[in-house]
């Protein structure tokens, strides 16, 4: 049952796992080029659109950023 995915330098990393880490992950070093529009939320939103097949997701789920908690 147990699977350990070694995240190698190759491109087998699951994009959804990478997105998870790009949201709010990493430090911001404010420089001279200030990108106020292209922020990480938009990166995330954009990548969600790549990942989610159009038929699999309600438009509201894609557009609303929030994620539904899964009932445990």
């Amino acid at each position, binding site marked *: *049952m*147990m*699977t*350990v*995915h*070694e*995240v*190698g*330098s190759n*491109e087998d*990393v*699951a*994009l*959804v*796992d*990478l*997105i*998870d*880490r*790009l949201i*709010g*992950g*990493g*430090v*911001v*070093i*404010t*420089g*001279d*080029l200030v*990108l106020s*529009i*292209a*922020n*990480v939320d*938009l*990166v995330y939103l*954009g*990548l*969600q*659109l*790549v*990942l*989610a*097949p159009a038929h*699999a*997701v309600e438009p509201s*789920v894609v557009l609303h950023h929030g*994620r*539904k*908690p*899964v*009932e*445990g």
Partner: protein
Amino acid sequence: MADDIVVHAYGLVGSELSLRLPPGIDGAAVTLVNAGRFAALVSELSTDALGEEQWRAHEEDPRWLQHVATEHHAVLQAVVDQTDVLPLRLPAIYRDTEALRRVLREQQPELEAALDSLRGHVEMGTKIFLVGPSAKTEAQERPRSGRDYLAQRSAEAANRDQARVRRQQQVLAVHGQLAHSSTRSTVNPPQEAALSGRQEPMLLNAAYLLARGRFEDFVSLAEQLNAGLAADGMALELTGPWPPYNFAHVPESTSVGGA
């Protein structure tokens, strides 16, 4: 003045390291820009490829973003396999290396503290899925009356609730043990099924900052915990080692001034 070049920074590492640096975004060379006790991993790219205009133009272009994010990550991943790295958040572009050096110098104490807090560590990811039946469904006798039927339904609901509570307790206990054997931990929202492609409910999506020397122990512990979860229809998956994205923070007490 070379206006056609932009500097993209991937992350920070200790200075005076000899690293095998992989190719960067669009195959550009990755080099080190030294600034005191640390150095930034950077690529010089054409503004036509990754300049401010390009970020603005592509902010609703998921494939472009996927490409940049994946190649940004590939560099950090190749480096974390060799040494400790402080990942930078996207977008991370600077007019030139001198501009980058200047901001690194201005924010040196905070950045050193952030990098120091990750020394000797990597990030591990853990997800727990509900893979088995959500509750033990024993073969029911056919209800003999409406009252029996309602009683059965009510008992089933109570069983499901008990099973759910027990699973929640198990998941919390597993997280507690993994957190105990790591340096820091954080719990993220579960991934949506539509994004992960997994239909099973995700019960835990956590990240652990793990001392490199504890990797084998951590994996064995996870295997052991997974065996316990499996008995109740759950499965644990480990990913990593990752660059410590979830733990790359400038310390709050000395947060970088100026917004």
